[in-house]
């Protein structure tokens, strides 16, 4: 299974021995819950599966691992800027064709009664804007396209 954490791919060879899963010197077992044994110490991990991710709680940490499905390619070098959550477009601060610099505010979104400014992650050119002021957007909706160098 391909997983990523905050956009970073995770990997490692997991082998299976009956009911045991092994990664390096760590062993996992699954019954009603998931048990992880490290250096002879067996500890419980809480796990849950949402639509797009595995969630794991272990030793006071909560980790969300996004499931990376086949057939898609990340576009780290540019591409779409998506709405982090459902909301309403309060203001569009740029125009198609405009050059923007990293950190520049592109759009203001209202969600959960707060304003959120969508910033340019890198220098580049705005090649498309998909919403207008007042539009409702769903979480994950592509707001605008940014062509970076």
């Amino acid at each position, binding site marked *: *299974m*391909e*997983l990523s*954490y*905050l*956009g970073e*791919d*995770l990997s*490692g060879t*997991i082998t299976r021995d009956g009911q045991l*899963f092994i*990664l390096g010197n*760590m062993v*996992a*077992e*699954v019954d009603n819950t*998931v048990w*992880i044994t*490290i250096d002879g110490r067996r500890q419980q991990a*809480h*796990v*849950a*599966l*949402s639509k*797009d991710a*595995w*969630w*794991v*709680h*272990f*030793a*006071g*940490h*909560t*980790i*969300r*691992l*996004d*499931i*990376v499905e*086949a*057939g*898609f*390619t*990340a576009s780290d070098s540019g591409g*779409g800027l*998506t709405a*982090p*959550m*459902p909301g309403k477009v*309060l203001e569009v601060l740029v125009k198609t064709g405009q050059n923007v610099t990293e950190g520049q505010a592109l759009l203001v979104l209202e969600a*959960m*009664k*707060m*304003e*959120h*400014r*969508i*910033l340019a992650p890198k220098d580049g050119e705005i090649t498309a804007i998909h919403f207008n002021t007042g539009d409702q957007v769903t*979480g994950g909706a592509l707001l605008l396209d940014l062509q970076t160098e």
Partner: protein
Amino acid sequence: MLKRVLIANRGEIACRIIRACKEAGIESVAIHAANDSGALFTELADIVVELEGNTIAETYLNSEQIITIAKDVEADSIHPGYGFLSERAEFATAVIESDLIWIGPSPQAIIEMGDKMTARRTMRAAEVPVIPGEEVEGGIEEIIAAAAKVGYPLLLKASAGGGGKGMRAVHSPEDVREAAEGAMREALNSFGDDRVYVERLLSGSRHIEIQILADSHGNTIHLGERECSIQRRHQKVFEESPSVALEPDLRQQMGDAAIAAAEAVSFVGAGTVEFLLTPQGEFFFLEMNTRIQVEHPVTELVTGVDLVREQLRIAAGEEMSCEELQMRGHAIEVRLYAEDPSNNFLPAIGDLLTFIAPQGPGIRLDTGVRQGDAVTPDYDPMLAKLIVWAPSRQEALQRLARALDEFVILGCTTNIRFLRELCDHPDVIDGWTTTDMIERLWPDGWTPDMTGRILEVAYLAANAAEASGYGRKGKQSIIGNSSELETPFATLSRRYP
């Protein structure tokens, strides 16, 4: 005694009030918007009525509809909780004019304290010190002019405001126009009132507030302080009592000032007088909240007073039942938000697939949600409040850390880990808690203190669970080939300041 209370609120505070009613032998009426159908507070209430309408204005802020329902179900009183209509004098007036008991202070007291600029003027008259600043009558240009007089850094604040909405910190003149426009717009959206005024930004100060309780028999007492300095986006995240900064002397002075403030507006009920305490030991009136506050449990644990139950008594015309102030031990509340603290506290949504609360000694959970609920963008992202009590501040921090380690929420990003790390931070342990603390400790934003080992465990656990068919109906596997997905989640590592 009250017989049937309608709660004009939702979430954890509605649950809190319903429980107080149950304990007092009073029936409770929950009202809810359609998208709150099945929420915990509707489960707990004796009577549940769905509100018509879609927006907040049409539902939880709809005075007329709410009063009509109250009359329909023969409620004798309305408790507004905090937020929503709790500090709308017109609503209080309409409630009283409908022959219902308003569980709160008089509309006149709400008006005098609710408008922050009026409150500043009233306090000045009562000789309670206020923060240096300028009230502003007018629009954007007047704000900019007032800002120049006050000097930088400064705070723009909505006069009708609260909860950090319509508030902006401005550090230099070139930012003031955009900030003022944003503050005015947010104020208009949140409160229907775009008036904004200017206060000096007192860096390095502590937020200290005094809990007030007053009944209609002429008793006004204070119940000690809460320190709520640790804030993000001007919203409190970590609240404690007592404050390390208050010696009995200063507590006495601030308690007296708070009582004076309350008496200046003939306050009756539960309220809070907020102050800023500077590093030099001066304190300034910030505002008075004429309602129960989010962080009231901290005071309840330290003083042993049940504030909501006292509200019910006072509203019924009884005397408050509190004995002499007896503060014992130390309490801390943290607010659990559905938000991503590693991404500038951006609100998060998701399903609460797993929600396991900590248990054991000294733990109180005031939650509005439970396992299986969905966190939507419709309302404030506060899910629950975790409050601990222990004999000493050190033990309270240790207990809080233990409780946060036990707290398991899967399916929605929360600030649990952020709160957990606060417990261990030397500045928190030393009590060097100021309102600019989060910026001071993490100027470049917070990221979880996570070893690679934890990520490896998570990777192994997820793969083992996946391969075992855990959490799925029937066993199946969706393991695909190597490659990446462009999903909203791929944006999680981006920042939206």
